[in-house]
């Protein structure tokens, strides 16, 4: 029978891990990977189909965190790592994806897109991209905090309604209702600002 190695220990807090990064302790990355590895891999896998690509994103995110903290001093290490994983995964997705690339986050985005479908225009224009960014961030700034969190977790992190409800201490029905409200408000904001994609 294979030999089991029992690993015991008290889970490290986010603050403790952040301290380790700021003090440049050599075990900081390993400890952070142990605590946050699962959620980081899940985030990467929602964006990328290939397991090897997801693993590369995972490693690169932790390397980037090590290289940027300090001077960066995020309030939540977990959130910072997840944002890095997401950004790197999106970059990799953009270099690899075709129009038909089917990943969990892409399927979820298509769900959002069906609400926002408006006449298309040139996307290569930096001005249009900048305008969209302004409208999106302005919309997000007006959203109640929980609605904003639900919305971004769903459409920018690709999490399921069940996961969002658990994380935000909501029932699944309330989480769905929050998402529905946010989608309607985003559509209204885009139409009002005449920002077409």
């Amino acid at each position, binding site marked *: *029978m*294979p*030999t*089991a*190695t*029992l*690993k*015991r220990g008290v889970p490290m807090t986010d603050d403790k891990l952040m301290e380790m990064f700021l003090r440049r302790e050599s075990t900081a990355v390993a400890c952070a990977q*142990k605590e946050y*590895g*699962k959620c980081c*891999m*899940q985030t990467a*896998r929602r964006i990328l189909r290939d397991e090897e690509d997801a693993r590369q994103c995972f490693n690169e995110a932790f390397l980037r965190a090590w290289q940027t903290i300090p001077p960066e001093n*995020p*309030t*939540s290490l*977990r*959130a*910072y790592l*997840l*944002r890095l994983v*997401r950004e790197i995964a*999106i970059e990799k997705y*953009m270099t690899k*994806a*075709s*129009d038909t*690339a089917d990943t*969990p986050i*892409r399927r979820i*985005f298509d769900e*959002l*897109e069906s609400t926002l479908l408006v006449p*298309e225009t040139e*996307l290569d224009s930096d001005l249009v*991209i900048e305008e*969209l*960014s302004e409208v*999106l*961030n302005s919309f*997000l700034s007006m959203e109640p*905090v*929980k609605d*904003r*969190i639900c919305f*971004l*977790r769903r*459409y*920018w*992190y690709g999490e399921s309604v069940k996961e969002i409800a658990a*994380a*935000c*201490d909501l029932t699944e029905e309330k989480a769905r209702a929050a998402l529905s409200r946010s989608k309607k408000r985003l559509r209204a904001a885009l139409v009002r600002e005449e920002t077409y*994609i």
Partner: protein
Amino acid sequence: MKANRFHVYMRSVDASYLEEAQSPVPNRKGRVIKWLMPKAVCFILLVIGLLIWKPWEDMQYAVTGEEMAAAGYAFVEPEGARNISYSFAEPLDEGAQVAQLEFTVSTSAYTLRALQTDAPCDLFDFPDADYELTWADGEYSFSFASADSHENWLCWNAPEEKVQYALYAAVDKADLLDLAVDILDKQGHPLAAAPLDAVNVKFDVFEDMGLTVRQTEFILDFDQFVYRIADMLTFSAILEDISGQGDFASIENVVINGADARLTYDEGGEGKITWIDAASGCICSLYMPDDATAQKLQLMAETLSVE
């Protein structure tokens, strides 16, 4: 064009909002109750522990660890053990001296007894248990018993050492088994079945469909697995399923180390594989609650199955 739309949206949100979305969400409701709850539970457990503790009727003689080793008993001190004391309890019968290690982990008191003997025997004189489960693992024989759901003990017979061990505590079954996993791991005969690099290893034993099922939960490479194994009472042509899970979207017949196995899973979701291990005469199941793939289930099943 569709890809561009996706790309543009994904890049457009401010980093501060993306980080906020993954930061802990404050929950105002029940904050006071949540603050009090663990303290109240600890207090209640402490009171229960004190109330059910009874002074040993046996005469006990305190000895040092070295004296215990010289008597032929090499106790393993579990991780986190405090207030450690060695002693010899009153002999069960003429000449049979029971060695004893008492210690605390967190706030709970444990007693580990050992007796040099060829045959399994009882080392504690306790009231009748509510239930008792017995199983064998190689040459080791185990029994787990529970009384009133808060007195639990695990006994095992180590044939190479010719020693009978018994671990007792007035704690939850999970806590006792967690400690037993640590002790047996250090003794060189793991209680739980998990790969070498697995973490968060948890062992449980219970009865299901008339079988004594041993369950090991573990995480490897961020994937969670639940492995169950039970001795077959009789040979059956029908593959019993001890996983406790239903079927999923995809179903395949596969082979695990020469044995027929049944694999069912939702790609990227839940999945399980069940098989009969002919070498050990055991029914086995392996379940993944998340991120299941056929490849992961088969590889892990092959790793765990006795060849």
